[in-house]
């Protein structure tokens, strides 16, 4: 659909992730490493779950469309579960690594707190998930045509980009919440994250009824943002502090 759509969708899908990377991750090499390792963990989980799906489709009749669709749903649910398993595995790995990093670092104590690792790991998952969702669609959007010849909606590109954006941010928030839950041994958090992930997936099944899928997903994203904010040490008091701090700064400077 031409370069305009390509850039527009690329910016929508990857803009926030890009800015987060630039301002919070890029300057610290350790964070970069954790980000990339997190992306790799997500990738491995996808690979294993897709292997299962692939075997299932090859073993069955390719002509039966409802069966294939059901297999896809089954495969995706399996993938969601596997992603959360790998998130937990990554958490254990980082905890182990943290001790080692603390031993060799020059400062007293570990160079990265668990909260920071949680955020970076979640962002890593999110970026990789977004890339896989969006890259093929982006490359198709460079051509002169758009979706719709066989009856599909012409808003496909922009809604794909919006979903990818939501999913990236959701993975980040889930990472924060999940790791915090594991730290505090609150195992119900893991179950809730898994359920929310499954809920987002099932909402995406409503496409192309975009109103029914995009709006609820964004609502969930806002809720998760709030929860992640609180679980990483924020509070309403801090927000008011921020506000008055700015106020007082402007008062003193003027």
């Amino acid at each position: 659909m031409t370069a305009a759509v390509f850039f527009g969708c690329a910016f929508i899908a990857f803009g926030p992730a890009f800015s987060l990377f630039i301002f919070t991750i890029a300057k610290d090499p350790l964070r970069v490493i954790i980000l990339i390792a997190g992306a790799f963990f997500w990738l491995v989980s996808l690979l294993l779950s897709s292997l299962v799906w692939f075997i299932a489709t090859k073993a069955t009749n390719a002509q039966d469309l409802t069966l294939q669709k059901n297999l896809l749903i089954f495969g995706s649910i399996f993938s969601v579960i596997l992603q959360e398993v790998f998130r937990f595995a990554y958490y254990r790995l980082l905890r182990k690594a943290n001790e080692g990093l603390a031993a060799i670092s020059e400062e007293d104590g570990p160079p990265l707190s668990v909260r920071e690792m949680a955020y970076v790991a979640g962002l890593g998952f999110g970026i990789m998930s977004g890339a896989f969702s969006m890259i093929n669609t982006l490359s198709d959007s460079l051509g002169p045509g758009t979706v719709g010849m066989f009856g599909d909606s012409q808003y496909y590109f922009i809604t794909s980009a919006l979903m990818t954006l939501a999913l990236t941010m959701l993975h980040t928030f889930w990472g924060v919440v999940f790791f915090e839950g594991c730290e505090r041994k609150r195992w119900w958090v893991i179950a809730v994250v898994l359920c929310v992930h499954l809920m987002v997936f099932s909402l995406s099944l409503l496409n192309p009824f975009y109103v029914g899928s995009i709006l609820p997903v964004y609502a969930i994203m806002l809720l998760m943002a709030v929860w992640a904010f609180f679980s990483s040490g924020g509070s309403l008091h801090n927000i008011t502090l921020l506000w008055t701090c700015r106020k007082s700064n402007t008062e003193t400077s003027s």
Partner: protein
Amino acid sequence: HRFIGGDSICILRQAFFLSCVSASISGDTGVIHVLESEADLEWPLSKGPNPPYMVLLESSLFTRSIMMKMKNESNRVAGVAVVVPNTSPPEFSPHTTCPNENTGVYSDNYGPNLAHCNTTVWNPRGNGLSYEEFDFPVFSLKEDNETEFIKQCYLDHNRAVNGSAPQYPLCAMQLFSHMHAVTNTPTCMRRNDINFSINPEMVCDPLGDYNVWGSIRPYNDTVFGHKENESVVIAAARLDSRAFFWEVSTGAEGSVSGFVTLLAAAQALREVTHEAPPTRNILFAFFQGETFDYIGSSRMVYDMENGKFVIDLDNIHSVLEIGQVAVHSGTNLFLHSDPVSRRNNTVNDENLVNNLQSSTAGLSFLLVEPNVSQPLPPSSLQRFLRAQPIPGIVLADHESAFNNRYYESFYDNAANLNLTYPSDLSPEEQLEFVTDTAKSLTDVATVVARALYKQAGGNESLVNNIKADPKIVTQMLYGFLVSSNNSWFQAVMAPELKNILKPSPPEYYVGVAMSSTPTRLVQYLLANLTGAATNLTQSQCQKPDELPNESRQMYSYLWVQGIVPPNSTERDSFCVRASVRLTKAVSPAFELGEYASKDYSTWTESRWKFIKARIFLVASRDLEMLTLGVGVAVLFTSLLVTYFISTKADVLFSSTREPASAAY
């Protein structure tokens, strides 16, 4: 998107002007518009709000006026797709009204009042579309499911309702047909010659192929130039034709009728010339590339003038050419001759005319000379006359203008010759069925054979025994106009060439690959029909010089597949010895390097990578800009918010923090 197969476009360039230009290298995209009438042309050309348009035409609308109107507004037209139906319109000829007018014999110096069709317009139905330059590609589409899909897409998305503009998304088509050649032949050939790199990029190639010739008495293929006391009667026909779209050139009346008749005449003469050889030799010549300013005949005349052929022009006694002979407008056929040389008494056509007219004894038609003094129709004979006065006659079914209503178009096919078969026959039975068309051409071939025998000084008493074989004629018509992959053609072809036989008729466009199917078929047919089967084995056939009585200089030896005997699966292959040769038919202009020559054909064909088309929907510009705008807004907002949060992170995320490490 969906890919569409489509034959395509015109791609040739002559010396001084373009003749159909191509698309841009990234393809031409346009919103599909199915043209309903000539008045509907207003929509793509002026009223439609979403230019450029890709115009889809039914063949009835593929006329000169519509194409020229689109040519004038070519910035609003991205391309044209023509739907080729299965039935023919009443008449259609994209060729010019005066074919080959600049390279024939008539010019300001020779019969100026006859030049440029001043007296007789040979192809009055010609609209000259094949020689127009278009800035957009022109495709052809067959009338099948894919074309229906395109029309349905147009009806679903692009139809203007009550004059208001249709809503996005719109159905569009993109045609890729980038041609590498530029401007005209001299420029293009000069670009070919630039060799900066190790792999020079050729951008165009000269048109050409091979002429096929055979003779009653063989000639030594290594001895060229004038032969003392040798007098030859030349019987000529042309092999090629063209259409607007290069892949569908059928040329039934334009070329097939002529060369099939000549092949049948050659076969009819075989026996009598072995029993009682005539005093003069008879040379059968089949010229390729005649459509494009007489490529084959001009090359043969050039070779004769320069001592590169087995005989030269002084050896020629007379020329009999078979033109278009299958579409009769009465019972008679006509003998055309050149009035200028007759008037000057430099040549004497009387003998040839008498021989021809007397040969129709016992047959149902007469051969008549036209009433008025008119020039020769476009024919290879004109190139011979250009070099030197020679007695010559062109045999044709038209007295003045062509009877052919589809000259050089894709409708000049079997239906144009009324070639019909009863519906319940299998392909093999159709091959053997003697149609009325075949019977009529057989009679013409009989006349031609008898006249040639008399003209060559043969024994008069044997003339009435010469008869062409209607079975052979009908098999040839089937193979050349319906399906070339039949048992007879398979039997006469070489084993390594059997892949050129297809279940459809061959294409008669001369091309650049020097290996066109008609040339090969005529070569092998002429060899089988005039040559002799020998006992040589396959290895002997390839190296006949080792045997005492055989000589590759005098004959060509061809190993052919032969028929499949009834109770076996192996073919009965054998070696044919015939005095049949191929000579190169590339315009002398390219040998001489005179790419801007006015005397010789300078046609070239552009090179191209691939040709394809696809259809898809296009979105409105507004939606695209909206997407871009939203994207840029999201990017900037996220940059700002992230910067803000990251600087204030220590305030926002207070809890137990190690003092040294940076916060979020």
